[in-house]
């Protein structure tokens, strides 16, 4: 069988990572609901996490996994602040999309 002869090397993970990142980026550009846009940002972050771990495994170094840990923390904070913004905007305009935020003035 051909599959048995193939070793699972980092390009597989990197292509998967690129696919996930591109899907997230496309969703971020297509969708207008700010909540779904944040979910697409999470997809992009996860795509990056996969390649961090793949590179770490390639170099036999734990640094890649440490990076994923920090990305996770930053993602959590980003979601908390971002969703707080969504809640604050929705108080004023009940059916706000991302386009309506352009009406905000300082």
């Amino acid at each position, binding site marked *: 069988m051909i599959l048995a002869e193939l070793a699972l090397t980092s390009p597989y993970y990197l292509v*998967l990572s*690129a696919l996930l990142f591109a899907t997230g980026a*496309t969703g971020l550009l297509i969708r207008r609901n700010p909540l*779904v846009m944040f979910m697409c940002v999470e997809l992009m972050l996860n795509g990056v996490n996969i390649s961090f771990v793949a590179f770490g495994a390639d170099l036999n170094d734990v640094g890649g996994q440490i990076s*994923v840990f920090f990305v996770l923390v930053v993602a959590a904070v980003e979601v908390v602040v971002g969703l707080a913004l969504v809640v604050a905007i929705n108080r004023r305009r009940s059916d706000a999309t991302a386009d309506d935020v352009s009406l905000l003035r300082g």
Partner: protein
Amino acid sequence: MAEFITFFFGAAIILAGAIGVVVARNAVHSALFLIQTLLGVAVIFVVQEAHFLAAVQIVVYAGAIVIVFLFVIMLLGVDKAEDLGVEPIAGQKPLAVVLGASLLATAITFVLVATDGATGVGSGDPERQLDSGITDIERIGRVLFTEYAVAFQLTAALLTIGVIGAVVLTRSQSSADQLDDLAPASVDLPSLAPEGANDEHHVDTVEEDAS
């Protein structure tokens, strides 16, 4: 071989979930597809023998972050289906798909051209090497609390700032409203004056009695 099959299962789960997040009309469905993707990423972490990260991925991402998403969806009542056919910006979707596809093509080209993989040099420190025999958790713990201790402290500060920011942003009353509430004028006290003492006519009757 088993590794290979697990990888392709994980990849299929991840990509199906990712496409689901993008195309689902209902925000709740998007959140559930997001959980699917995150669990698939945890499978990929297990294949790469990052067991601690796989556990953290499930507990923190699927267990906490997506729950926050679902809480906000519930709170705002935006769980109604969105009409994806509406297109206020002409040509937004085709352009977005073209941009996403070109991003993907660029990334994959880079990966396939760079056939020699990661060209950097891993740390010679045996504590950082993945095949040094100690468990995953111990290795990450040792490195995180020594080499990356400052960064770790900074994430603590970042989390605190994030929580304070969320509280400030979602506070329901502005500070002006709160000052109004403290003002005693809004309290309706019962009058201590005798019945009718504050009427206009009352003053007149007193004057008439004096004359």
